[in-house]
């Protein structure tokens, strides 16, 4: 776009109405004292603008936890799933937008996944700026700001939102509007200041330039055994991850011979994930599986698609019941440095 714009916070309801015209709007909503989740919203006051990380990332819209690949009747005639309703994902932060780009890469790689691609076409993404907490490390992963992967991006500059429009779909939302203002110099400065100052706020950081080599070198580091011993193989880390995309394909059969083929989220942390015929298991223990996950996030994907899949959102760190998913802490330990306290350490502990 040639021009940059601002939207007065007072005009937000008008903008929300426009979004609702595109499809159901899903935004972070406070669901408990500490947690937020994407839910359908009607009014501005439904939206938890303060939300930093929702329990599940927006991948649940692009790639639902369970979906039908095709159905079949008694005679074996196949029906493909119906097309999708349009929807708006509102308020995704840069880490989650980067996560969606990773999913796009995987599911569009030939042969493309038609179900994902069709659904993605019906989604409008409105990104939103944020300020990091102690778990965020997107700045280290290079995913703290994004130039694409959204239709509209809002940066919170006090009583206005600085508006970036990245796609024709995003521009369509603002067609013939009376509330978008062309950004004047002070707003532009406020926008630049926001992103400049935000960089300084990250306390959770590490050196990422040499990650693949580090993971290769430290294949046998005792840290894997120590963490693996504590791992419950619950799979939390993978389900909350914006880029974990593994799935299982299951048969849902009816008594009359009809049924569905469905896919559902799977986790490499589950015991059966690496199993092959004859009950052979390539990753039988939690140590193997945890190491596999770390490697996949920080190294393995680099080989396949030339970028790591961790986006630094901190969800795994926060949701791990065994407190072993402090990714930054683990990498620092692999580097042989002892100067960093575990992120799980209680701040006021003796």
């Amino acid at each position: 776009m040639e021009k940059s714009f601002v939207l007065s916070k007072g005009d937000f309801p008008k903008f929300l109405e426009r979004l609702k015209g595109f499809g159901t709007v899903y935004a972070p909503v406070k669901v408990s004292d500490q947690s937020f989740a994407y839910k359908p919203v009607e009014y501005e006051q439904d939206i938890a603008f303060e939300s930093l990380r929702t329990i599940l990332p927006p991948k649940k819209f692009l790639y639902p936890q369970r979906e039908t690949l095709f159905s079949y009747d008694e005679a074996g005639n196949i029906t493909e799933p119906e097309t999708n309703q349009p929807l708006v994902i509102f308020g995704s932060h840069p880490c989650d937008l980067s996560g969606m780009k990773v999913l796009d890469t995987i599911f569009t790689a030939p042969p493309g996944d038609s179900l994902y691609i069709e659904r993605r076409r019906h989604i409008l993404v409105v990104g939103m700026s944020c300020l990091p907490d102690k778990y965020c490390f997107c700045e280290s992963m290079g995913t703290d700001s994004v130039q694409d992967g959204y239709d509209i991006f809002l940066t919170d500059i006090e009583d206005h939102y600085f508006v970036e429009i990245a796609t024709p779909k995003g521009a369509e939302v603002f067609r013939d509007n009376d509330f978008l203002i062309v950004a004047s110099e002070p707003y532009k400065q406020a926008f630049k200041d926001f992103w400049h100052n935000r960089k300084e706020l990250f306390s959770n950081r590490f050196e990422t330039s040499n990650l693949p080599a580090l993971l290769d070198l430290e294949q046998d580091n005792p840290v894997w055994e120590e963490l693996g011993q504590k791992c419950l193989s619950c799979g939390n880390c993978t389900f909350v991850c914006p880029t974990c995309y593994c799935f299982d394909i299951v048969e849902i059969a009816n008594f009359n011979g009809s049924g569905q083929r469905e896919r559902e989220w799977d986790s490499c942390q589950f015991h059966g994930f690496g199993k092959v015929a004859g009950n052979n298991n390539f990753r039988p223990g939690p140590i193997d599986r945890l190491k596999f996950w770390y490697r996949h996030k920080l190294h393995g994907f680099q080989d396949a698609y030339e970028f790591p899949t961790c986006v630094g959102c901190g969800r795994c760190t926060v949701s791990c019941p065994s407190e072993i998913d402090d990714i930054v802490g683990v990498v620092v330990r692999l580097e042989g440095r002892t100067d960093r306290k575990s992120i799980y350490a209680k701040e006021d502990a003796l």
Partner: protein
Amino acid sequence: MISPNSTHTPNPYLPSKAVLRTIFEMAEDNYLFQFTVDPSTIGRCLPGQFLEVWIPGVGECPISVCSDSMDGLIELCVHKTGRVTDALFKMKEGDWLGLRGPYGTGYPVDKMEGRNVILVAGGLGIAPIRALLQFILHRRERFGDLIVAYGMRHSLDLLFRHEMTALYSRTDMHLFIGAEEVNVPEIPPIHAQLGRVTDMLRMAQYDDSYIAAVCGPPVMYPFVIKELKARNVAEENIFLSLERHMKCAIGKCGHCFVGGVYTCKTGPVFPLTDLRFIPEVVECVNC
């Protein structure tokens, strides 16, 4: 970004119907299934590639193609070992099921042309090796000397018995069959040595001019690689097939991800040189 105007992508998970034409019992729990397929939906299968076999109401599993391409016909050699294969063994001639594929990168037949070739199979690993063997025999003049070493636990486990018996009489190849236990008499009688596949490799005459295609259980690989290397077969000329449970077979579901590659797309056949850098596989190929 996914453009709203991009062209329609077909659903990659849809199977196409295949009719079970013949079932042949080769050994206990090992049957050969021959299917008729529509060649416009299941394309030409190269040796080492696999199909996803879907039985409605039961599920899907990946199976290696064990025949060279024939118009509208595909053969699968299956060991009864799980839910889907159990159901397959209960099917009758004339029944239908779903197939999709072929998937994966098979043995490098182009690279093998004009070269001496040694094929090494352990147990059920004979299935993709038999596809490669048929491929070579159908185009025999394009390949150099040919050796087949085939090992199994018990001589009763021998698969493709009639074909193997016939192959012994060919003068344009050398066949070595070995079993750790040999039962006599068997019908038809076959000349099987007492010993492992590595013992068969020691009997064969080959050198660094050979290119090797290997398929068998992972425990077999380090020993076979050691034998091949003892005869100076170069690492880049040793091709191994890896077993993983490919659920989607199109590089999405993650079940077959090892190191940085999807076994279903980059493999299942890899040159030894590539496997060196894949953790989890290293232990079984390092020697």
